[in-house]
């Protein structure tokens, strides 16, 4: 089976609310794909549709070319962690993994392997009801690994992890991808994925805003803005706008220019003899790039905050 996830034109409503509005993207094997967007952007719904839990009104979601519901022994093909709290509290972690293993024709030996792999150790014989959220995430990871699947789908796996756990999770995801698996990881916080994901699918309001590598995204956003400090802001604005740039005043002597590279700005202002004392290409972080992309897509934003950002 090809270790891919292909999502094509998914549409879905919850009553009058549009949950998915033509969601389309592909997850390829060999690297971690970050699935980011604000809360309510449709990440979890998309994952549930991929996993056959929710039905989409339109479009298709295929794993290795097949819909999830047609997979036999699905946990051998896809490992998923949707909600780490979905446990019977009075059942031990090991027994939770055991019934899952039995459903896929796997035995207790495999259960003990994934318990060790997820770092649960002797805690696995305790009742899951007493687990911290971090422990539950590890148990969820163990469950996702049970069938040794080529495709892994994790919904907000960083939630509830302590810093040590976050480091562990990042290394773990990198290792899984390094083994040639397709790994799709959702998060509403870009910084969680900053050093982990090689590819990003940024979503908002039920559709994909950007489907790009991390490097491309950073370059695209960083290249677009230059900060200019000048003693003649009015003249500078006239010259730069004439050249096709978009200029915004940031302070008395500070302008933000987009649409022109820093070298072009220096050349233009020099040729027109407009005085300036600082030109700085803006170096965006992934977080800022993400904010930029999702600003219009964020479901809940304050009008004043939006103005202040300009």
């Amino acid at each position, binding site marked *: *089976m*090809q*270790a891919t996830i292909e999502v094509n034109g998914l549409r879905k409503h919850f009553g009058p609310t549009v949950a998915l509005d033509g969601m389309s993207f592909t997850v*390829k*094997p*060999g*690297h971690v794909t970050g699935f980011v967007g604000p809360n309510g952007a449709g990440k979890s719904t998309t994952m*549930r549709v991929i*996993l*056959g*839990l*929710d*039905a989409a009104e339109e479009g298709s979601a295929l794993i290795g070319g097949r819909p*999830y*519901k047609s*997979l*036999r*022994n*699905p*946990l*051998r093909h*896809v490992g*998923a962690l*949707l*909600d780490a*709290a*979905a*446990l*019977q*509290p*009075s*059942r*031990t972690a090991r*027994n*939770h993994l*055991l*019934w*899952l293993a*039995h*459903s*896929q*024709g*796997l035995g207790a030996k*495999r259960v003990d392997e994934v318990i060790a792999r997820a770092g649960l150790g002797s805690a696995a014989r305790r009742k899951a009801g007493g687990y911290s959220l971090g422990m539950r995430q590890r148990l969820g990871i163990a*469950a996702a690994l049970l*069938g*040794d*699947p*080529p495709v892994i789908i994790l919904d907000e796996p960083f939630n509830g992890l302590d810093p040590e756990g976050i480091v562990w999770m990042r290394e773990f995801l*990198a*290792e899984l*991808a*390094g*083994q*040639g*698996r*397709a790994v799709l990881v959702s998060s509403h916080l870009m910084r969680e994925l900053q050093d982990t994901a090689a590819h990003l699918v940024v979503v908002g309001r039920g559709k994909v805003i950007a489907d790009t590598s991390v490097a491309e995204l950073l370059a695209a956003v960083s290249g677009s803005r230059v900060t200019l400090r000048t003693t003649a802001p009015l003249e500078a604005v006239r010259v730069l706008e004439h050249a096709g740039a978009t200029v915004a005043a940031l302070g008395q002597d500070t302008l933000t220019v987009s649409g022109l590279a820093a070298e072009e700005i220096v050349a233009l202002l020099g040729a027109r003899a407009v005085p300036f004392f600082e030109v700085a290409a803006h170096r965006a972080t992934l977080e800022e790039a993400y904010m930029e992309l999702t600003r219009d897509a964020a479901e809940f934003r304050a009008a004043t905050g939006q103005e202040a950002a300009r």
Partner: protein
Amino acid sequence: MTTTLPYHSGLRAGRDGFARLLRAEWTKFRTVRGWVIGMAAAALVIVLLGLLTASGSHASCSVGSVEVACAAVPVGPGGEAVEDQFYFMHQPLAGDGSITVRVTSLTGVITYPPPNHNEIVPGVVPWAKAGLIIKDSTRQGSAYAAMMVTGSHGVRMQHNFTEDTAGRPGGVSAASPRWLRLTRSGDMLTGYESADGTQWTKVGTAHLAGLPATVQVGLFVTSPGDLTVKQADLGGSIEQVRFTQATAVFDHVDLQGNAPGGAWGRDAVGVTGTTDWERYHRPNGVQESGGTFTVAGTGDIAPRMDGQTIERTLTGVLTGLILVIVVVVMFITAEYRRGLIRTTLLASPRRGRMLAAKALVTGTVTFIAGLAAAMVTVTFGKQILRSNGNYILPVTPLTELRVVVGVAALFAVTAVLALALGAVFRRSVAAVITAIVVIVVPHVLATASVLPEGAAQWLLRLTPAAGFAIQQSIPGYAHVIGHYVPQAGYYPLAPWAGLAVLCGYTALALCLAIFQLRRRDA
């Protein structure tokens, strides 16, 4: 470390199968201690309540104020307890033969009937019987076939206590006599009737396997007690049975075959005591005058309905069922409450199969628990009841097996119904209450004497509580007057028919649950 080669698992791929789902659901069930304890408690409650009820049930027989050993109850050829008491005027008949008689009168007395209970009145109870009988011997419970006129059910042919065939309706009088004929040919006995002694109509045949070469043949009269049922306070009822006696007049007695002839033997078969009426007014017996025989008798030739039944030990079934319902509903609603249902559906995306596996595991677990509980309860409950002097109406091993296995099936099917309701409601409280309302409450209402009898019977026909019929070991008989109501342990539907009603509701609920599960987002 990074490579874009697709990942290949080192795990050995096995075949997909329903057995895996069963194993997974069984693992789920057994790994939650509360559910296992709940199921064991359900079984234990049945055993404990059953044995407790049996221990508290005592009976004894006495003559006057002296306690004596109870007389042995005769058992019919089919193994059932029987009443076999009648006045018998008989001769031995070797080999094949035939007896014919004309009945010109059937009268009788009923002692102290309602409303005033202060006098003895002339009257014939509906199932007073007078006619011809060919019987294995005068031993109570032995095989027989009989042609008879009855108090108000016309001519009948009956054999071996439980079998009854109707002939011409209507009463008998001098103006409208009935001719009866009973012939033996090997094991086959055939009954005929006629209004004039020339035009004969066949009423029925009876095959009496193992009938000896020489049988007793002759005239008989018997008259069962007069039963009245009075509504008591709180919806209960009071049953009263009064002594009756029937008297029939026979003539044209014609016995064909190898019989000695001469004097007829006279026996009050099965009669143990005599009433004041018999002592001072009219004893049972035969008066002969010129070929006319006037025979008076009392008793009945019919299945006996008086005694304890094996299902009386199963008093804990309702309580056990409530426990089972709670455990089984939790088995599915806990998954909804925790969101675990999504994990289950990830492991088994074919939802109908998943629910079927859950239902099968639930049904099997409850079946085994119910079977163990019912087996222990009936086996030991019977012993305790007997040692306390109670008479238990005997049933065949097959019937006892049906009761025990049936109770286990009642548990299993109810459990599946509760599971389906749990899947439909996805909330434990709603599902538990609904399950109890549809199966436990109707049974309680129907058997607790709070409803009119008709309403109680309809409840046990139309609701899933019909399934309780499976535990009825002794059937009611149309030709035996009895108070056949749910509170006395008689269900309006036959045992398997009742269970089928419950199964129908369960299938319906399961289909609804699967339909919803498939349609809804998880």
